[in-house]
């Protein structure tokens, strides 16, 4: 299976960079942006399989970003990563078409597993089309 292309969206620069390092080391083609607006631009420029999206961000928040992304590329799978307490926002995200949500802090193994699951679903859906 081809390694999925990943877009990381998180305003916590240190965290995002660390994740980028960890994912790149594990062979993912990962790109990082630090806010929602950049993420929306980025999906327009490049094709991604899975987007890892933080919920609480200054400016455009996770939910708004998710809506925009889904409008542009409906088939991309989004894994919500939230440090925010509210499961509600995670659920709201899922109702908007996110694949699943993970709570911070998250281990790289769990994240990898979730990304793989999401990617598998994307592949299945693409095959159907």
């Amino acid at each position, binding site marked *: 299976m081809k390694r999925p292309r990943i877009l990381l969206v998180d305003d916590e620069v240190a965290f995002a960079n660390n994740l980028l390092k*960890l994912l790149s080391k594990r062979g993912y083609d990962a790109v990082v942006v630090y806010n929602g607006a950049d993420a929306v631009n980025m999906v327009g420029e490049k094709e991604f399989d899975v987007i890892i999206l933080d919920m609480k961000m200054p400016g455009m928040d996770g939910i708004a970003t998710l809506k925009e992304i889904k409008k542009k590329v409906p088939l991309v799978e989004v894994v919500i990563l939230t440090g925010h307490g509210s499961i509600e926002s995670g*659920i709201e995200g899922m109702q908007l078409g996110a694949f699943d949500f993970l709570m*911070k*802090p*998250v281990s790289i193994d769990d994240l990898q*597993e*979730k990304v793989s699951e999401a990617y598998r679903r994307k592949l299945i859906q693409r095959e159907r089309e």
Partner: protein
Amino acid sequence: MEPEQEVGVSIKQPNPGKKGKERYSKLYRKFIFLTLICSLVPLFLVGWGSYAYYSGFSKIRIMDYFKNQVEHHREIIELFLRERTSDLQLVILTHSPDSLQNPENLRRIFRIMNQGSSFFTDLGLIDDKGNHSAYIGPYALMDKNYSQAFWFKEVMNKGIYISDMFTGFRNAPHFIIAVTRIEGNRKWILRASIDTEYFRSLVENVKIGATGEVYLSNQKGILQTTPRFSGKIMEKAPLPVDFFSEENGIGIYEADNKDPNRRFPRQLVAYTWLENPRWKLVVRQDYSEAFRDANQANRAALIFLHLSLLIILVISVISTRYMIKIIKKGDEETDLLNKQLVQAGKFASLGELSAGVAHEINNPLAIILTESQVMRDTIAEVPSLSLSDEVKTELIASLSQTESQVRRCSLITQNLLKFSRRNKSQRETVNLNAFLEEVIRFMDGKAKGAGIRFALDLKKDIPSFRSDPSLLQQVFINLINNAVDAHEGKPYGTISIGTRTDSRRHGVEITVGDTGSGISPENMEKIFNPFFTTKAVGKGTGLGLSITYSTIKGLGGDISVRSTTGKGTQFNIFLPFSPPDNAHENREEVITPPRSSI
């Protein structure tokens, strides 16, 4: 999460304080005043009004009756005198003076006249010179000459004459009736004296109560009969002449201090004048006796009036007390509710705070975790030559320790998040058995510390239903806390918790029993009252079971308790599968367990 009892310590019992007490007593006085005004004023008006009206009315009635009596009596006396006069007229007009001069004839006539009753004492025929022509009677009057007597002149002038009482030749009080007849050129007089005893009994024998008396007096105020109490015949009448201002009437006579007859200082007096002779008939009675019946009736009415006043007073005091009690209770409940709201608000803000803290901590934790993983990756990449295996192992152990501590912190933040979520009162789908197990796990530490074990009997067939887990959690933590506290002084005990479906009522029945000290019968009815506690000061607020009760009721359920002193207590809780809608709920959501989380 904090159990209610501990959190509740900050709730203070509503203290009515001096101000509150003053407020209630002020309210009390106001209520009493208003009810009394509203009820007593009309009662007074009606009561006193009718009292005044009826006492006036009855007085008039009694006086009328009195007046009628005296009129009636006058008619009887006048009739008697008229009849006796007619008797004499009949005799003198139907018999010639010659035949009347015959003593035998006159005796026969006298006998016939006295046949019914002995009305007459004597009978005599007198010529125009004033000499007796014939005389029948007990006195020796045959030789008496009456030409100088006052009555002789009167009868010679008027033809008929009824005298006042006088003593005359016989020296005993009597009065006479005389009639005349003209025979040829001579005038003849038939004269009879009326039996004084008979006449007196006719006049006086009218019994009017214990104090009433009747008498006749002439125009000069001389008694013509003997009254029952005051004076004798031919003496001066007891009432002054000037009292009788009118032809006939009725009045109240107030005796002054000089009055020799002060026996009845206040009298009701009715009087009337006879036509012939001009005698005055007087009936009088002690005032208080005359009005005794009316006064008694009035007094009874007054007693009833005052009794009703008293009853109204008592009722208004009782009802006001009751009302104040209700108001007080309402105030206390409002107070409690306010305090609960404050408490709920505290929980909510605490929840928000925890959510904020959790979020702020989660981000650095996430960074630490990823940093540690980056380091792991780095160590793995370093050629084995530059780092000894020993150092590598030590580094990796250190990283593992870091990661495990991060996970520990993460667990804490997750619990905080869970707590904040639970404080938002909302309906969720609850798997009751799993939920109870979670609560029991939470309470296990405390129970074990007190030597208490849990005995569970959770039936498997209980479906998930919608309820408010945060409220339920509070309820069961309360009950279990109380159950643990009930074992104070006992080395060990059991808390048994059971669930079963109640298909008839379409809900679930939960029992929480303990082997503690039980509840005494006198406390039994108070346990759900707010602020009722048997725990030591500072240990319990007395709110736990009250909140439990209102929570269960709010969820559409029911709670009851059975207890045996010294043996233990069992609470039975019923929860419906479909609870009533929660008005405070503004959003609903189904909480599914996260598909994955750390």
